[in-house]
Every structure is written in structure tokens, then in C-alpha cells.
């Protein structure tokens, strides 16, 4: 038990990987509409924290390609490259709901 606690503490103190920082920083911009860390304060908004990575990637690409109808996300998604979408999706998928 003690060992487990030490492991957790070590992980918490570990430097954040550059890849995670990219996802975190990109994701922070989404918070104005989807809530801090993707946890929306209202049920009317889509809470994206903890959604599966593959699902998020597909939605963003479908928005970007006009395959999924949208009021705003089709215009936002066009601003992102495939690697950026993947970094975003990976970061949101790793957040607790």
C-alpha cells in the first residue's frame, strides 16, 4: 500500500510530457464552450471529457469534412490538422468525466 502511494506521488510530480502539453494547451481553447478540462457546467453542452479517443477523432474529422451537420463545429474543425485533432482527442479521452 505504501509503495503504491509513493508511486502515485512520483507520477504526480513527474514532468508533463511534451505531447500531453500540446494536447492540454490545444484543449484549453475549447473550454470557453465545453467547460474547463471538457467538463461542461450545463447539461445543454456536450461534455467531452472522458469520451473515447477514436470517437472524438471521427467527430472532428466528420465536422471538418462536412459529414456531420453542425452550427459552429464545422467552422472550428477546419482550423485543425490531423495530428492536432489526435492530440486533442487523446487529451480529452484521458480526462475524468
Amino acid at each position, binding site marked *: 500500500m505504501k509503495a503504491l502511494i509513493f508511486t502515485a506521488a512520483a507520477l504526480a510530480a513527474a514532468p508533463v510530457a511534451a505531447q500531453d502539453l500540446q494536447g492540454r494547451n490545444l484543449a*484549453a481553447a475549447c473550454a470557453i464552450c465545453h467547460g474547463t478540462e471538457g467538463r461542461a457546467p*450545463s447539461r445543454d453542452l456536450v461534455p467531452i471529457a472522458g469520451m473515447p479517443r477514436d470517437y472524438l477523432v471521427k467527430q472532428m474529422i466528420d465536422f471538418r469534412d462536412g459529414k456531420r451537420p453542425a452550427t459552429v463545429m464545422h*467552422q472550428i474543425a477546419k*482550423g*485543425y490538422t490531423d495530428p*492536432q485533432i489526435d492530440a486533442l482527442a487523446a487529451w480529452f479521452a484521458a480526462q475524468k468525466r
Partner: protein
Amino acid sequence: MKRRDFIKLAGAVSLAGCASSVPSKARVVVVGGGFGGATAAKYIRLWAPSLDVVLVERESSFTSCPISNLVLAGYSSMQEISHGYDALRRHGVQVVRDEAVAIDAAKKTVRLGRGGDIAYERLIVSPGIDFNFGEIQGYESAMNAGRVLHAWQAGAQTVALRQQLEQMRDGGVYVLSIPLAPYRCPPGPYERASMVAAYFKQAKPRSKVLVLDANPDVTSKAGLFKAAWKDLYSGILEYRGSSKAIGVDAATMTVKLEVEDVKGDVLNVVPPHRAGNIAMQAGLITTNNRWCDVDWRTMESKKVPGIHVLGDATLSAPGMPKSGSMANNHAKIAAAAITAALGGRGAGPEPKIINTCYSFVSQKEAIRVSSVHEWDAGQGTLIAVKGSGGVSAARSEAEGTYAWNWARTIWADSLA
């Protein structure tokens, strides 16, 4: 994270007993608790809980400019657009209610209005706007007499303008004067004109809204605003471009333009603005005596190292509006850069941020504009990503619902 030098707290009366207990922490001081400053304080604590964050704000609560135009129409209330700072305290932000009156960039201290200096490792200045009253002759005395209002900083003037609209006789004229761009919230004046027109249509149908725009045409969402005005407020709302106010006369309730004088019953004249006063005092202004140029990768001042400037006070990047969404995003760029620097890491990846602004055109219907901005090394600034962004297909009640959701979410993201 490497151990920091002990931070000098001598004279910081307001902080005595709270901040000095952990002297080994690096301290970030944030001046101004609006969309920029509040978000920066919160996100620095989220991303680097080991840092000491002090927010200096002169008001006891935040009053949102977004949605404040609905207060003018009676569709929202001051209570609804006001938010306290207690939630930031729960994030570990020390909120000091005082005014930052001077900054010493060499000593790295902020002087407080009630006395005392706070030392900082990094400083964030998010001062919003102040006005160049002198550009409109007679403005300050007319404003001080309550005869002309801007209500372009939500608060007491929002309440006063609502009262004037309520007291105005049916058949009266409300005059809204808009300064030349750049100004805070490009679509804001046109939303305001729409909201006042909606109120008149319902409560004082013989009254008029007269928009005097210094700009040649509507500066944001022009097609959508003009369609709404034609469909909903024909005979109530009149728009005149290239109509710059150069003076006001409180005695005759007149706005003086370059070529003619216009009389009204309620005069809502928004003067040209500039970065807030503390930015001027601290020597952060770089451009036209008005705005603060920054390195968009970090939000650090191009003039004073160690000081990051956020929000409406910045010299806007090309195509970037002065908006709450942008100030909130500026804060996250600064938070990423500062937590990286104080944590001994290199700068993070280059920033990419999103703007989204909703405007109401009637009680329930809204329109929207969005854009995505990214770092362009060649131009050395943030630019709108080609092919991204745009406006609503049409005004709708669905966009109105999204507008409220946006407001509640950004308030929470910034302050809760």
C-alpha cells in the same frame, strides 16, 4: 522544480499572514480580474499548484460585458451578469481587493492603492480598457453630470443607461455613437442597438434607435445584423455609417458630428479607448499611445520583460477581435508560458486559440462569429487559420440557446 529565492514581502500589508507562510514559492501577480486576469489566475493554479498566485482586483465582483446588452432591454439582470471571486479562492488564488496603482518592473513589485508593495516573479497585467475622453469635446463633464453614458464597462453605467431608457418618453430618440475600430467587442454596439430596438418595439413603439457609426459600415456580422434590422426593426432602427462623434453638448442633448449635429433623448456615446490606465503607468503601451504589443507565443510585453499583457489592452493580432473569448484564451497562452518558465521547462508548443462571439438580435434569437488563430513564424504573429471560422447561417433561437450556454460556460471557465 528548483527552489526559488525568498520573496520579499515587506510592506505588503494586504497579504500579511497569508502569503508569507510559504516563502519558497515563486509568485505570479495578476492585475485585473476580468476574463483575462481571472482565467490566468485559475489556470496557473490548475497547471502549477506549486506556484503562489495573487490576483489584485479593485471591484468586489466581476460584471460581464457579454449579456449586459440584454440587461438594457430588460431580458437579463445585473445579478445574472455578476460573479464573485470566491471560486478562485477555492483554487488557491489569493484575491486582494485593491487597485494596482504603479508597477516597478526593475524591482518587480506592484504598488497597491491602499499602500504596500507586492513582489512578483512574473506579472500579468489584464487591465481592460480606459477611454480617450478628450477626443470628444465636452464628454467628461457631460458624463459626470449623467447626461451622456458609454456603458462600455459593465457596471454602474449599465444600470444608469437602463434607467434612462425606461424613463425616456415614447417617441424619444436613443442615440448610440460607435468609435472607429479597434474597440472592445466589434459586434457589441450592433447587438446593443438591436436590444434597445427590441425593447422599444415592445414598450415604446413610437421611439427610435439612431446608430451613428464612425466606421464606414457595420464592422462585424454585417449581413446578419442588417437582415435582422430590416426584418424586425424597420421604422425603429436607423443606421448611419461614417458618422464620427467629435463633441457632445449636455445642455441641448446634442451629439456633434463632423458635418452635422444630432439631437437625442438618451445619448449613449462610446468614446475611443486604449489599454487600461495601469498599462500606461507601467510603460507597457507600444502603439499609437493606445495598445500594448506582445509576443503572442507567451503574451509577454515586447517592451517590458517579465510582464505579460492580456485581453483588450493588447495590440490585436490581424483579424483578432477584442473579446472575452480572446482574453480568456490569451490567459491560457500566458499560463502555459509562465508555468513552463517557472517550472524550468522550455516554452510549450506554439499556441492555437479559438474565438467565438454570440450577439443577440432579439430576445431569443442570436447570431455568431468564430475564428481559429495560430502562430505564424514568418509573420511573427497569430493569424486566422485559412479556411476556418465563419458566421451563423442565419439568426435563430437555437443560436440564442447556444449564446446563453457560451456565456455560462465562459463565466465558469474564467471564474469558477
